[in-house]
């Protein structure tokens, strides 16, 4: 399922959204149980924060790249998923470079850049890249349905304290399902208002915000209408929440999941030992 490029002339601005984009495939990573994948991603994120230094980060990043290769997801998807957070990465890197104290590299007016600061900025940048790359792989290799199923099952122990795990998972499923629909709808409405001479591209900030009204109101109305229709359709099929609900596809652990677990464990041990023994990079 590619979320992009609807038939209705979706504007380029809306085409670059990669949320919930899933690459169908049959790699070992695709076949893994979504519950385990979720746990492994969390483990990977923990590893990113436990491992320190440039070496550790590079090793983690290399592992992520290896996972992409195994999953046969094109590596350029890493770049694509990074695009929206480039400002955050730059902001963190610059802030770290300036505010970590240590041996002064150079200073100008009230700004000083230290050696430790630069090193820390590099580590933070690599960490963020690995973080996004790793967690994006989850959505690239797990269909939204599987993902929410996995989330629901992982959260189900919380049902004992009346946490609405099923309802949350259902809401997520529906939200993900309707992202492409609403993007297409937005494109249609924008075109319709443009055809009536709406000017969306020029003018100051206030004018542009005002120009959004003719788009947002129909969009909201149509979202509510769709929600209404969906609710009726679900009720017609006797949907009444999670209680007593059975599943068509039961999730079970397979051999591939054991391998996944072992690989992640090996990664933990390997990277942490490597970081311990390889001297940290300095200049």
């Amino acid at each position, binding site marked *: 399922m590619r979320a992009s*490029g609807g*038939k*209705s*002339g979706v504007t380029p601005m809306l085409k670059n959204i990669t949320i919930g984009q899933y690459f169908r495939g049959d790699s070992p990573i695709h076949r893994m149980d979504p519950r385990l994948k979720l746990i492994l991603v969390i483990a990977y994120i923990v590893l990113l924060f436990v491992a320190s230094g440039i070496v550790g980060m590079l090793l983690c990043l290399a592992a992520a790249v290896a996972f992409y290769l195994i999953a046969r997801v094109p590596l350029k998807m890493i770049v694509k998923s990074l695009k929206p957070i480039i400002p955050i990465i730059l902001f963190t890197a610059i802030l770290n470079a300036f505010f970590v104290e240590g041996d002064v590299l150079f200073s100008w007016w009230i700004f000083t850049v230290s050696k430790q600061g630069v090193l820390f900025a590099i580590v933070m940048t690599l960490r963020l890249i690995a973080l996004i790359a790793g967690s994006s792989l989850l959505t690239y290799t797990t269909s939204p349905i599987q993902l929410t199923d996995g989330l629901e099952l992982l959260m189900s122990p919380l049902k004992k304290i009346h946490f609405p795990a099923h309802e949350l998972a259902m809401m997520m499923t529906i939200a993900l399902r309707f992202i492409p629909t609403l993007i297409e*709808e937005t494109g*249609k*409405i924008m*075109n*319709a*208002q*443009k*055809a*009536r*001479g*709406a*000017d969306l591209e020029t003018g100051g900030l206030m004018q542009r915000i005002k120009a959004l*009204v*003719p788009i947002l*109101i*129909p969009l909201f*109305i*149509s979202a509510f209408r769709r929600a209404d229709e969906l609710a009726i359709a679900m009720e017609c099929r006797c949907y009444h929440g999670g209680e007593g609900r059975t599943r068509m596809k039961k999730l079970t652990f397979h051999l591939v999941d054991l391998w996944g677990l072992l690989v992640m464990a090996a990664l933990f041990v390997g990277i942490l030992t490597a970081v311990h023994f390889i001297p940290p990079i300095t200049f």
Partner: protein
Amino acid sequence: MAILSLQHVTYCYNPDQKDAFNAVDDVTLDIEQGEFIGLIGPTGSGKSTLVQHLNGLLAPTKGEVLFRGQNMAEDKKKLRELRFKVGLVFQYPEYQLFEETVYKDIAFGPGNMGLDEKEIDRRVRQAAQFVGLKESYLTSSPFELSGGQKRRVAIAGVIAMEPEVLILDEPTAGLDPHGRDKILSQIDAFHKNTGTTVVLVSHSMEDIARYADRVLVLQGGKVALFDYTKAVFGLSGKLKEMGLSIPEITAALLELKQRGVPVRTDLYTVEDTVAELARVWREKRGDAHA
């Protein structure tokens, strides 16, 4: 000079991806001022994509679109003005309504043109009249109206810009037969009263047959046929081959002919067919008497 002219227009979706395909493929045609053009074609034949080129919402990947001889792509700043001259009513246009009152919604287009209040008022009232909306509706919220009335409001919103060309993309989709006939006859009356060039996209052969001067048949993004209505429906066999339905009345005539009744099969309106059947009937009776 043709009011709208397409020169080798090709439009490609996802040009740099594996699933690239030409929704519109090398289309060349002229639309003359004051014509009523019917545009038909099977689902996915590129009708909606093609009409979005006519007011510059889509720019062709290859080729050019000319409005009164002027290439649309030449000056991007003029595109907005162009959209006032070529009014496009989308499919299910009622989903674009957003204002508090019907009046304000119809006034959105003319307001964007920068007209003064008096002129806007005249246009709103006239447009409402053209689509058969009572004055009393103008002050109500568009969201309180029925589906058919909402659609009238949306069509009025484009007509109020007083475009030189009015394009309607399936304006009757999802309406009951009564609502369909009413909207179409109002569009036809608008065309006759104002001399506006009209392009009507429709699935229904009956609608096209009844109102269009010329019929454009699209198939797979290409122009399959573009000729006077009579000539196009004379080729009912070819239309059937393309997977297009022919007007029911023409189908009935074809069936009669197959059963040995000597009728003409190039008719597509109920009136003409009644006359033709009466003729055949008289001739037959004449034979019997002789």
